[in-house]
């Protein structure tokens, strides 16, 4: 809990602070991406960096994602620790080879003799009518492919610690930040994402989920924006006498199955909330992680609240119809109870 005079930061500022602090102590860290220089990043997460570190270490790139992401792979293998930004995760389509065939595989192909210590930071999420090429999450797509760690902070405290951990990791880390949590000038921000962030550098462990709300009747598992929806639903449920536990995954790869299983073993019920497409993704993986381990802990069939398997529509009414929200989570509980 934030105390009244504690410093609160947005995720945008906490990311920039983590990068700046690491750059001060580690000359091998540098940043590449589109509009990450004088503009400070479309999402504000590199603001102030070029002023402090100059354009040798803070590099605005051409619109050449394949070139600069694969260049980051090469630089990482050669002793640097690049942080690169893919402006919208939706743009992975033009550069995925650099990501999943090079960044994610070179450690393995080389039998571990090459390391690829780099961070690929990228924005996710919709809810503001930017249509289907600028609103996706594709968490499952990245988490599916072996060789890259994948993290997704839900608040500024985790955002800073995960960024520092990612930059210090000897393996590639995909760092997925949700636009609706970011705290930037052009979009509203979920209030719960802007929290107390210590000034000093610290890490948040990659691969460890967090129980962000204790409960005993149902476990709601989510990540990023979904955590806030889950917390809001938990509040509503509480007013109905239902005690919901909320698990923030924080990291998709490695996935902390222990924490999920322990929570569901306690509550006996599971709802997974994911803004990514429903099928073949995170929500199915979480449910499988529980059921294949010990199906007997479940008192009811698990439920998922995820984006239906359609491209993300532009029109507000259509998009909102598809997106997860607290009401849908409460409805999932109601169905679970009725069943």
């Amino acid at each position, binding site marked *: 809990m934030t105390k009244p005079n504690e410093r609160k930061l947005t995720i945008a500022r906490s990311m920039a602070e983590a990068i700046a602090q690491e750059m001060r102590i580690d000359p091998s860290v540098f940043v590449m991406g589109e509009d990450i220089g004088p503009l400070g990043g479309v999402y504000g997460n590199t603001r102030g960096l070029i002023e402090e570190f100059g354009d040798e270490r803070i590099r605005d790139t051409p619109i050449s994602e394949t070139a600069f992401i694969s260049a980051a792979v090469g630089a990482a293998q050669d002793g640097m620790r690049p942080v690169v930004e893919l402006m919208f995760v939706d743009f992975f389509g033009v550069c995925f080879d650099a990501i999943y065939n090079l960044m994610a595989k070179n450690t393995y192909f080389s039998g571990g003799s090459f390391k690829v210590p780099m961070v690929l930071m990228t924005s996710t999420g919709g809810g503001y009518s930017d249509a289907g090429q600028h609103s996706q999450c594709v968490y499952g797509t990245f988490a599916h492919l072996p060789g890259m760690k994948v993290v997704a902070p839900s608040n500024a405290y985790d955002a800073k610690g995960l960024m520092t951990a990612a930059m210090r990791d000897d393996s590639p880390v995909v760092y997925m930040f949700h636009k609706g949590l970011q705290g930037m000038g052009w979009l509203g921000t979920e209030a719960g994402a802007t929290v107390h962030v210590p000034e000093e550098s610290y890490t948040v462990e990659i691969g460890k989920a967090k129980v962000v709300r204790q409960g005993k009747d149902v476990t709601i598992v989510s990540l990023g924006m979904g955590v806030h929806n889950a917390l809001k639903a938990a509040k509503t449920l509480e007013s109905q006498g239902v005690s919901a536990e909320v698990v923030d995954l924080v990291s998709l790869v490695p996935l902390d199955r222990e924490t999920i299983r322990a929570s569901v073993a306690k509550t006996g019920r599971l709802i997974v909330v994911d803004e990514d497409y429903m099928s073949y993704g995170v929500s199915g993986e979480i449910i499988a992680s529980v059921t294949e381990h010990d199906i007997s802990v479940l008192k009811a069939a698990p439920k998922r609240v995820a984006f239906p398997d359609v491209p993300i529509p532009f029109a507000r*009414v259509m998009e909102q119809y598809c997106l997860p929200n607290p009401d849908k989570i409460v409805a999932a509980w109601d169905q679970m109870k009725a069943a």
Partner: protein
Amino acid sequence: MSPTRDEQHWMYRNMVTSRRFEEAIAKIYFEGKTPVFNMANGPIPGEMHLSDGQEPVAAGVCAHLTPADVVTATHRPHHQAIAKGVDLNKMAAEIFGKATGLSGGRGGHMHIFDPDVNFACSGIIAQGMGPAVGAALSRKMQGKPGVAVAFVGEGAVNQGGWHEAMNLAAVWNLPFVCVIEDNGWGISVAKKTASAVASNAERAAAYSIPGKRVEGNDPYAIYDAAGEAIARARAGEGPSLLEFETYRLAGHFMGDAEGYRPEGEKDALFEKDPIPKMRERLKADGVASEAELDDIEAQASQRVDAAITFARQSADPAPEDALTRVFAA
């Protein structure tokens, strides 16, 4: 090649319509977004990339095209759509996310699709290139007439897909023209810091095709260069690469503070606004009288007003329609 009197009138009408349209969108875009700007709010949510200042390219190129020719556009597509003859009412409704929109509200401003005039878009940089080259291939294979034009920004030429498509068009000698709108900026990144080549016309040498750069954002010079390239494509002589200097009078998107622009750049661009310049020239050349020009402008405003009214008055789509049209019916 010079435009006829009628073509000049058409070009001017088109440029004015486009500008009026953007002005109307700009005004409405801020509804619900003040005092605190939040892209999610208002009757037109989401990103909005306006084309103010870039009208001469769309008009000068599309003056040579028929509805049967194919155009692919970008995240900044309104001027090209208007010049290609996309239905203005349905386009406005799409931008508002209404049921009567071109795509029933599924696409929005960055995804304008109108099969009646063979117009399509992508919000991913340079990804209009392949589809235009493919349409050119299809015309050739089917023996159907028509050329395909891909409009891209100068930032797109550094995308791998751009090169791949250019080479394919050249090696297969397709009826294709790549039109680069060089507004000097890719969001906040200046062309000179992103591109190793100052004139993209030079890149044509990489594909052994003709390349031309035209400075000055001048609709007449654009008309001339485009006419030559499109005639060449129609005659089966293969693709061309054109780069037109143009001016982005708006921000990259609405809400852009444009702090990256050098002091005074914007003011200088407004002084070179191509629309009053063309108006003066039409009068000076005796091609249009003051009364004719007033009439063209009034008609343009009326058309835009009608489109906006249509969009505003149209109903929202049914929310559950989001689940339809994923696959062909």
